[in-house]
């Protein structure tokens, strides 16, 4: 389970997202998939809900969705945008 990191604020513009660390004034731009994922994590979705959401949203099979999801989550965590909820 993941959650958005503290002091983060995200805004969406024409399908692209900007996420800002309000403490460090660091800004990251996400593409459409990254933004969609960030928004769902912010809404509290767990891994299985995210996989189901990806298959429905992007028309890909569950294995591909899970693989892409883990890669995206790794990237979001690497940039400090999300963190473990526990």
């Amino acid at each position, binding site marked *: 389970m993941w959650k958005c990191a503290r002091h983060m*604020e995200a*805004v969406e*513009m024409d399908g*692209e997202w*900007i996420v*800002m660390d*309000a*403490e460090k004034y660091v800004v990251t*731009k996400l593409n459409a998939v990254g933004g969609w994922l960030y928004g769902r994590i912010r809404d509290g979705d767990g891994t299985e809900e995210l996989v189901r959401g990806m298959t429905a949203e992007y028309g890909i099979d569950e294995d591909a969705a899970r693989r892409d999801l883990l890669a995206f989550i790794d990237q979001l965590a690497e940039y400090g945008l999300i963190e473990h909820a526990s």
Partner: protein
Amino acid sequence: MHINKIKIGDHFLLASTEHPSVNDWIRLHFKVIEPEHWDMTAPDLYIRISLGYGVPFESFDVQIRRDGDLIRYERADFLLETIDSYREAKLQAHDEIALKHGLMTLFSAFIVHHGWGLLVHSSCVVSNERAYLFAGPSGAGKSTVARLSHPREVLSDEATLIKIEPDRVLAYDSPFRSDSLSNYDKETRRLAAIHLLEQSLEIERTAIPMAETALRLMDKIFYWAHEPADTLKVLAMCRTLAKQVAGYRLKFQKNDLFWERIS
């Protein structure tokens, strides 16, 4: 004691100083409202200015510390102390550069804190009654664009003062200039486009997505982050700005032919 009521954007500042040279500097660079024209409007910001602080300019780095209701912006060549509503401040400066940068620091923090607008590192030029903003890294050509745009009106050559409202964005005659002085006879204009400059051998104007416009603007705001609540206001205002005003990448040569692509 010298006291000047000055107008920046929609705001009135009451600046007091004991130094004749500071008084002269203020009267040269700002729109001063002479006492016979003072009305009952209370100033938005009171500032006391003195000289004799620190050493000449060393770097742009500002250290910010909060002590209760007081916020201190400290640089080698100035010390700015303000209450956290930014309604009252004290600026101690080494020289004119420090004075200018200290006042920009204060006024930028003031307009962000009150959600009025932003001070953007850019030039801004009027054409056909509309304002066009030109931003870019140091040396990209902001002030060159302003010079090449003659005889069009120049609202700013270094720091553009913009007011951001839900349904319009306005550019004001800016007192924070590098190569010019204003006579303050210029009207406020609606901002029509934002250009991110690249000097080139060709001329090309390409639209960029909203999110990229907002992102590219964020590091051009005169703003020193220290208060997350105010930092979020910068993000929200950049978003409102990018949603209303189209952004472009502008490759330009050192002549005024780029205007053919704009207007």
